[in-house]
Each structure stands twice: as structure tokens, then as C-alpha cells.
């Protein structure tokens, strides 16, 4: 999910988590802090890259962006999800009333 969000462009932690909350309609509930270790892991695995940037307000923020590897990984995941979705839709024919 994080990778998908980052397709839209680079972003920093706080914004990412807001987006997650937005997209899931408030249904996904992590504690905010738990996001960061995940980002850390993704970076370690080489899917995203980080950079500290100074904002206009004088705040230091860490920005993340997708790497090539990350894009490939995302594509792979997407394909997997779609095939699963296809299989399931066939199975889950509308239940007779």
C-alpha cells in the first residue's frame, strides 16, 4: 500500500499515514508510529529511497520516493492481486436470493 501511495510521487511520513487513513476510510488502524519501522524496512530492502529535506517553514522532513526496484516490486504485487481478484470473482458468483 505504501508503495502504491508513493507512485504518486515522493512523500514524507506524516502525509503517507494520513493518506492511508483516508483511503481505508478510517478502517485500517495502525498506531502512527508503527509506520516508520515499515518505511525503514522497505528502504533496507531497496524498494524506496529517502532524503532529508528542509521545508519552507524551517522544518526538517524525511522524504521517500520509489526506486526502480520498488516499481518492479509494485508491478509484481499488482499482478498477483489482480489474478487473485479474478479467481475469486469467478467463485463468488452472486449468491442466489
Amino acid at each position, binding site marked *: 500500500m505504501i508503495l502504491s501511495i508513493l507512485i504518486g510521487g515522493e512523500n*514524507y*511520513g*506524516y502525509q503517507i*499515514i494520513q493518506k492511508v487513513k483516508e483511503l481505508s476510510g478510517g478502517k485500517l488502524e*495502525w*498506531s*502512527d*508510529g*508503527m509506520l*516508520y*519501522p*515499515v518505511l*525503514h*524496512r522497505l528502504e*533496507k530492502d531497496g524498494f524506496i529511497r529517502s532524503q532529508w529535506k528542509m521545508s519552507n517553514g524551517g*522544518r*526538517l*522532513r*524525511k522524504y521517500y520516493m520509489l526506486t526502480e526496484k520498488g516499481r518492479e516490486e509494485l508491478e509484481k504485487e499488482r499482478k498477483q492481486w489482480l489474478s487473485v481478484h479474478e479467481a475469486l470473482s469467478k467463485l463468488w458468483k452472486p449468491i442466489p436470493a
Partner: protein
Amino acid sequence: MFDLEKAIKNWRKKLRKNEAMEDGYLAEIESHLRDDFENRRQKGIPEQEAFQKSLETIGHGDRIGAEYFKTDTRSLSGSPPWKPSHFMPILVFNYLKIALRRIRRHKGYSFINIAGLAIGMACCILMFLWVQDELSFDLFHKNEDNICRVITEFKTSAKLTHNARTPNPLGPTLVERFPEVINFARYQGFDGWIVKSGDNTYLNDFLGTADPSFFEIFTFPFVRGDPKTALSEKHSIVLTQKMAKKHFGDEDSMGKVINILEDFTVTGVIEDVPENSHLHFDCIFPIVNMEDFWHDDFSNWHRTMFYTYIQLQKGNSGKLVGEKIAGTIKDFVPRSSAEVFLQPLKDVHLHSDFEADLDNYSQGSSTLVLIFSLTAMAILLIACINFMNLATARSASRAKEVSMRKVSGAKRSDIIRQFLGESFLLSVIALLLSFILVELFLPLLNDLSGKELTLTFTSNIQLILGLIGIALLTGMLSGSYPAFYLSAFRPADILKKHFDIRVRGGFFRKFLVVFQFALTIILLIGTTVIYRQIDFIRKKDLGFNKDHVLYLPSRHADAEAYANDLLQDPGVLSVSYSEAPSSEPWGVTGFDWEGRAPGKEVMLFPVVVDYEYCKTFGTRMKEGRFFSREFSTDATESVVVNETAVKAMGLETPIGTKLSFRDQIEGRIIGIMKDFHQSSLHNAIEPMVFHFNAEDEGYHHVAIKISAENVPSTLSFVESVWKKHIQNYPFTYEFLDEKTDNFYKTEKTIGRIFQYFTSMAILIACLGLFGLASFTAEQRTKEIGIRKVLGASISRIAVMLSKEFAKWVLWANLIAWPVAYFVSKRWLGEFAYRISLGWGIFAFSAALALLIAILTVSYQAIKAATANPVDSLRYE
């Protein structure tokens, strides 16, 4: 006013504590926190509330840290180290490694610690093995709890006298009359008879004679033959494996012939009698033969040659049955005041101090068993106390190490585990070492005590488990003090330069040392007492002259001719056919004398003598005269008694009183012999009656007094005379002083065993003191350095250091003396003649203990005192 920066700073501080939170991560999360906070502020939420909410949404620091850790770590389990590990074995191995490293670094101390504990445990094990053996006598018989020995008891003057020898018909009568008594067996044992088999002739087999039911009651394991029928034939005999091998080698002895005056056929072979049996014999033949051999009479109530054992029906108490049968003898011998009671088999070895009992048997002593048990425990206690003392004292010097560990992240529980693990390890090593020591020294103990002790896992499982428990307990106790006390310190305090750790518990440690030395002093006193008593015995005037007297069996040679031949040699001073002093006395009751109050019973000890008795043994008369050739009637109409007999009988004018014993002894008293010690000094002097034997009885022994010069040549002369008169028996003899010494064989053995153990105890105590002294000296290095600089002399410093220990030793005496006095008195109570417990003994032991302590401590004291003050003051 809500201070955002301050709040964030606090929060940051808290999160920092987490190991996995690197600064980078922290910054990022802080940034998030600020964003979130601003967000909420824009919505209009008040500052404090906004901050709180932001904190909540971020989540708990530890969990975040855990997640970070998961990604950063390479450990498989993925659980951070601050979470308690559930995987123990790895940690244990780690502690072991550290413990071993530590032991190697402080080899000296570790050695003292381990050695002291190991020696203590080894001594304890050895002594307990001895005690265990003593307590196990006769328990191997299947019917053991139903077997009793019958003892007769009578009042003589005011005292109770006991005789373990019982009237011949008593056994069968008891079985006949009382349904509770289901079986009986009589027994007697003797040696010195010629035993022949084929071409072999032996003189040293110990012969036993008993009723056929003997093997039904006493379940000696049969290797050949059937216990139920083995002795049913009159001329059957059962051998032990040892005797069978001696006479017949490896051949099967069943059916073969052994000759003891008459031919006996071997009908059974039993395993050798184990060492922990009060009965010892090489063979058993049926008791009916004694009618021929001894002219005995089994229906005569006045013949008391045998010991009677009975078997009770299951469920009966020896005491109750004993009360029932008490008056049995009186029913058949109206005159007698003898009562009968039962002694359970398990009490025979340790609790028989009857006035007349088994010959050829050195009894155990329950007092000794008690003393040994207590000593064993005392030694173990000393060793354990030592161990704990040393460990806790040294813990102070490890305070720095502890604080270093804490600072680098060790939790208190880790430190506790480390200390405990270390002391467990040490005590387990000590235990293993003690097993090795026991194996090494067991042969020595067996030699000394004549036992066959072994330490095997199966037979001594209780002992071994007990020791493991003690080792663990000691390890735990000694480890727990430093573990719990030291680990509670705050690292900062310890690392500060001026921290002077006064290890608490100084008083407790002093008490331990005092207690330990008290135990050692008790042992010292005990050894001294034993030594003095044995010395006393050896030097005491026995009332007769035991030097240079040969004692031989007479083998019924012609008395006059034999004596005449012997007297030819100038080395032979006198010859006497009599029972020598120090031969086992046989007491009998049933004496009658003129003026005896009716019902007054006295046990007297008859001694067969001839004219040369006084001359040969150097005994003296108090009143009247001894037998003399000048009076022709002496041999048949006179008797002599000793002073004690006069007292026992209550004679006012003894000389001239007529005395008689059944039909065996009769005569008027012609003289009173001065008291002498017929038997061991354990016993009071017996009341004796000296008489001539009846003409046809003959004499069993001949005593020859020889001159002190040229003993070997006199000895060979005596041998040549023997060979001239006696052809069937080989020349055998004893020296009377050897016979006397034999009484105290047990005491001498005990004395030596005790000496060894006491020296061990002293060694352990010294090891402990040595370690403690060196530690104390180390602690006070700075103080000593300063004193030296200020001009104190070496000797003054050494004295100062030793003084404290000396004080402790003196205190120890206070505790030790009463206990030692009590125990010594009890042991000495077994001797009718004993040393007095004077101040000298106690003072001597105290001085010795003090000397030992000072020597031990002074080495350390001097070493410390001579150290260069520059070094000691630079100690930091």
C-alpha cells in the same frame, strides 16, 4: 503554560532509553509528532490536549523500537535482548564460561575454597560410611526383626548383673511353653582345636556349634546344601566358603570329611560370614556333640555354656514377650533369683554391655557411633561455613566488576544468576573432588577399622543424594549473599573513587569463624582425651606383672614332668598351671558360704590356680596366705578370694569362712588376694575366687615366667620341651602383655581414626582462616601503608592484624569447652578406670588452637606488613 519544547524533550528522553531507537529514527518520529500537533492545533484543540492526543496516536515507544529492532537484527528469534529470554541453555553456557574464567583468574582463592569444601565432604562421607556399617549389623538376616537373644538378669547385692549365657534347657522350654516363641537355637564358638581334613592339620579355624534350627533362624546364604536339613545328622558340618577353600581347595567339599576329635561330613557350604555380623565362625556342627566333647548336659539348668537365640512369631514385641517369660528360670531353679529378658537382634552389636558376654568378639559402642556421627557433621559444617565465609568476603572485591556489568546493561537478575551459578559450580566441583578423595582414602579407613567399606551409588544413594543437596545448599547460600547484596548497588556509587565498601555482615562472619574454631577445638580436646586415656591404660599398674610371661595351651601334657623339664633352663623362672590374669573371666552365680543371708546372690569369677600362681604373675596377698605345699589340705580344702569378693559377699571375718559352689568348688578361705585387673580396664575389678582344679579335670593353660635377658634362647628352649612332650599340636604361644594390649585394640584404632579426622578439621579451619586473613589484609592495604609511612614497625602491624583473630579463637574456646567436657565424660564413662578431665587438657587444646590460628594469620600479616607503602597507597 504548556511548554512544547519541554514536553518534546521529555518525550525524547524517554524514547532514547530504548536500545533500538537510533537518533535518526527518533528525529523522524519527532517530526511526525510536530506535524500531528500542529494539525490538531489548527483544528482548535487546546495545546495540552493536542499534545496528549498526538502522543497516543504515535503509539508506544517500546513497540516501535521492537519493530525497528526486527528489521535491524540478524538474530533468528527477532526478539530484542531486553525481553526475557526463554531459551535458557545458551545463557547457562555463558555463565559457565564466565565462572570458569573467573576461577582461573583467582586460582589461589578458588583452590582454597574448593579444597576446603572437598576435604570436609570427604571426611564426612568416610565417617558416615563407618557409622552406617556399625548400624547395619545383623540386619541381613531375613527374620531379623523377630530374632531376640535371651539374657539372664539378677540382683547381686544392690546392682543388677547380666549374663548373656543362658541355662542349657532354656531355649526348648521357651518354645514349649509360650506360643509366641516359635523357634530357638543355642550357639557357642571357640577356637584352638585341631581340625584335620585329609592330610591337612589346622589350628586356626573358628568353630561354631549350634542347634540344627540355627540356620532356620539365621538366614546365612547357602551355596551348597539345604539349610533345613544340613545339621540334622549328628556328625554333619557346614563350612564357610573360606574354610572349604582352605581345606579342600577348589574341589567340591560336599560329602568330604572334616575331623574335629571325630569325623564330620560336610553337608553344606555357606557364604563367608559378612563383617557386619556379631556372630563369626568358620563352620558350624551340631550342638549335641558337646555332650561328648564337654561332658555337657542339656537338661541341666545349672549348665550355662551357650547363648540362646529365639524367634518370635510375627507381630510380637520383644519387650512384652520378655515380661511374660521373665520368671521361667525360677520355675525350674527355685533358689535362683534370675530373671530372663529379651534383647532384639539389632541391639546386640551396639548395646550389649553385659557383665558376662560373648568371647572372642569386640563389641561396638553406641557412644562411639554417636561421637563419630557428630564429628562427621561438625567437619562438614566447618567446611561449609568456610566456603561461605570466603565467598562472601571476597565478594566485596568484586563490587567494581559488578558495577561495570550493570553499566553495560546487565540486569540485576543476570548478576544474581551469575553469582549463584559460580558458587554452584565451585561446590559441585568440590563434591566431585571429594568423591575422588574418598576412593583414595577408603582403603586406609578399611585397614584401620577392619571393615570393608565401599562407596557405590546404589548402596549409598541416600548419602550421595544428601551430599548433593548439601553441596547445592552451600553453593546457594554462599552465592546468595553477594548476589543479592551487591547487585543492588548503584553503579555510580561504586565507581566513585572514595567508595569504601564495608561489606555488611561482618558480625555474622565473625560468628561463623568463632563457631568453626569452636568445633575444631572440640575435636582437639577429644583427640587429647583419647590419647591420654590410652596412655593411662598402658601405664597403669594392673596389680600383677605382665612382662615376660609366656602363655601356652597345656595340651594336657603331664603337668609335673613338663614343669620339671622347663625349670631346667635358668631363663625359666617359674611355671604355673592356671588361668592367667587377662584371660576372659567367666562369672557364675550360685555360690554359697557360711553366714550367707538367704536370697543373697553374688556373681563370682572362679580362677583355676596352682601353687606357683603368685610367683609367676607377681600378685600379692592382702591378708592371710596363698596356697602352699606346706599345707597338704590346701589343694582340696582351701580357697582364696580377692578384696572385691569379700566386699561383694559382705564377709566380716573372711578368713576361715567356708565357701562352696555346687559340687565343683569347696573350701575354707585361707587368704585375701590384693585386687588386680583380671580383665580390661573397661570393667570394674571382678570378685574372684581362686581354687585348685579337681584332680581329674586337668589344666588348660600353662604360664611360664621367663627372665628378661636372652628371651630368644629361652623361647627356643621352651619350644624344644614342648616338642618333647607334645607331638600332636604345633608350638603356639602368646606373651601376656600382648594379651592385655588386645583389650584396647578398639580404642587404639578409634584413637588413630580420630586423630586423622581432627587433623583434617584443623586443616580445613586453617584454610579458611588463611583465606580470610589474606582478604582482610588486602582490604586494609591502604591503612597499613599509611601506618607504615607514619612509622609503625612491621612487628607492630603484624600483631595488630593478628590480634583480632586471636580474640576470635579465645571466644571459640568458651563455646567449645562445655560441649567437649560433656562428650568426653560420656566416652570415658565406658571405662571403669579413667583419667580425670583436668584443666590441663582444656588449656592445652586452647593453646594449641591459638598457636595454629596465629601461625596461619601471621603469614598474611607479615606479608601485608612488609609490603611497600608506596605500592599500597598507589592502589587506586
